């Protein structure tokens, strides 16, 4: 009985926490697929819609068509009035994400005129319209995506190579000032990156690295080198020396031993720390705002695009674009982290 209560409570907490993550995410996904008209709906849709239900009436008096849309609350609301099909078509495209040929539009609308009553129409939305628009409306979104990937890859490379070596040295050698190095590298991690960025801007300008992804990656690597060193140090220490000795006794050279025994055993540490390095580079806006000019990263571009109120659905699809590589990267590494230890 006591157990049942405890378990129920546990599940409630789990469900509550998952909801805290999933509900905002589902709204974000829904917005990223919404048309401009749907953005203003109240209540907001939780799941994206595939089509619009419209109603058309012919207004004899003013001789124009009145276009109405069934909103998420189930009521028709007036959207637009016009007699010109090219303008109606343009309106559908920009506000409803609906692409219909002018002739087809005319065919559908004329019925309302002929019958003299309200007719109902269902138009399919162009489902990925916002994503396509995100890359066309926001100049340089593609470039920003490439930049983000570049910055992330270089950050991972720098942090892994330097941090990994430091970690190995701290674990396996008896260099002087070992403790000072390991504490020092973690203290560096405590500095807010923004405060490092200001002096770094001067340095980067001096060395011609301002507004470059290498320059950004260097700044992103500063906290991650220390973190990687700390994580890999622990793992290197945890690798039993006898694993390596066994390999040497059974016929391997030192290099073969490192490649076939030591490295696979420490790979989870590198996977975990490369995830941190990736996230630092991928999520940052503040540092790239300070240290780039034309070469924006994707996160920065989206951050800026949120400002425009009419383009919130494009920004949302941009955010989804930002999430997908991060998710893919995480899932890729998840296998390494969990499976390697059997």
């Amino acid at each position, binding site marked *: 009985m006591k157990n049942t209560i405890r378990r129920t409570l546990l599940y409630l907490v789990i469900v509550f926490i998952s909801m805290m993550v999933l509900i905002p995410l589902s709204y974000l996904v829904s917005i990223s697929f919404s048309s401009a008209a749907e953005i203003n709906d109240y209540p907001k849709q939780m799941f994206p819609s595939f089509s619009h239900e419209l109603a058309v009436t012919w207004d004899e008096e003013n001789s124009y068509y009145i276009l109405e849309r069934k909103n998420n609350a189930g009521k028709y609301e007036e959207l637009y009035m016009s007699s010109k099909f090219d303008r109606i078509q343009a309106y559908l495209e920009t506000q409803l994400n609906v692409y219909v040929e002018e002739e087809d539009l005319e065919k559908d609308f004329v019925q309302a005129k002929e019958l003299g009553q309200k007719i109902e129409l269902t138009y399919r939305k162009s489902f990925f319209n916002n994503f396509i628009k995100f890359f066309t409306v926001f100049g340089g979104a593609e470039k920003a995506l490439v930049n983000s990937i570049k910055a992330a890859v270089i950050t991972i490379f720098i942090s892994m190579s330097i941090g990994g070596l430091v970690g190995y040295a701290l674990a396996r050698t008896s260099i002087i000032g070992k403790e000072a190095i390991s504490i020092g590298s973690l203290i560096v991690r405590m500095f807010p990156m923004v405060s490092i960025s200001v002096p770094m801007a001067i340095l980067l300008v001096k060395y011609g690295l301002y507004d470059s992804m290498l320059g950004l990656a260097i700044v992103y690597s500063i906290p991650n080198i220390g973190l990687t060193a700390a994580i890999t140090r622990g793992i290197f220490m945890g690798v039993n020396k006898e694993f390596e000795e066994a390999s040497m006794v059974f*016929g391997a050279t030192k290099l073969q031993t490192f490649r076939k025994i030591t490295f696979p055993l420490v790979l989870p540490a590198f996977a975990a720390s490369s995830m941190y390095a990736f996230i630092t580079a991928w999520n940052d806006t503040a540092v790239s705002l300070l240290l780039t000019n034309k070469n924006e990263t994707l996160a920065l571009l989206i951050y800026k695009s949120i400002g425009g109120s009419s383009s919130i659905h494009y920004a949302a699809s941009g955010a989804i674009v930002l999430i997908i590589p991060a998710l893919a990267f995480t899932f890729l590494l998840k296998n390494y982290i969990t499976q390697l230890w059997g």
Partner: protein
Amino acid sequence: MSYLTLENVKKVYNKNVTAVESFNLEIEDGEFIAFLGPSGCGKTTTLRMIAGLESVTEGDIKLEGKSIVNLEPRERGVSMIFQSYAVWPHMSVYDNVAYALKLKKLNKKEIDKIVQEVAKTADITQYLDRYPSQLSGGQRQRVAVARAIAVKPKLFLMDEPLSNLDAKLRVAMRTDLKRIHQEVASTSIFVTHDQAEALSLADRIVVMNHGVIEQIGSPREIYHDSETMFIAKFIGSPPSNFFHVEVKEKDKDIWLVHSEFELKFNGTEKETLLNQYVGKKIVLSVRPENIKIADEGIIETKALIIEPQGSHNIINTNIAGEEVKIVSDQFHLKEGDLIHIQFNENVLLFDMDTEKRIR
């Protein structure tokens, strides 16, 4: 010529810590040797020097007549079982066993044949696809054994391979190791601090203490003919009992005089005693099973604590302030009973100063 020779081997760490000194040993082909000693006595260091994992400070190690001290571990043709088994966790059991064979660039068919063969010997055929984390300690141990015999080594080195197993499994594995040794007939060196393992496995035992060899001999010799007081104290459970006695001569007879008893001595060492030790104090060592409880004896004492062991009892008593243990099959004795004890002729005499046997 012997198969493996260690000549005056010495190991010094950090220029001032001597781990092993003047280590001389000759091993014949197919022999099973155990290095026995308390922890820190240098037995593992010696084994690691043979394996090439530790450099040799002085001296020479020859395998089949050729010096191997300057060879890399992989060039020595030895295989090793480690204390932690060192079964690689990221490889399946099959890959663990095949690792050395792959490095030798054997083709897949040959590798498979050997792996299946040794898996059968070590009884791990049904685990070949598993990963070490899915195996128990004993099973991992078997994988380590299979991996070690797969390479058909010239020397089979074992560094306390049974110390991480539970007591019951240790005894079973001990028997298995002996069976495998008989099957593959490889020359083996086994390092242990557990005398039961050394006594039951080895053809010859090398007892070490503080980096030097105390005695080399068969299990029987080590136990019944201990060279030093250290061995008499270290080997046997419970170990030997010691009595400080004075040597006295009465009418051409030798008497060993203790505050509680006087013992007439007729052993082979009589001559030496007469010549060198009359009037001096020496140490008399008696194994617990060589003390007899009888109706009449030279000492009368009380059974203080009785530890039943199933097949026998260990009776603790106190003679002149010294704790004395007796192995006895007289199960009717109770704690507090008065007992009379005698020694049989299997007693060893040691010099007080050198702690070496008096012969």
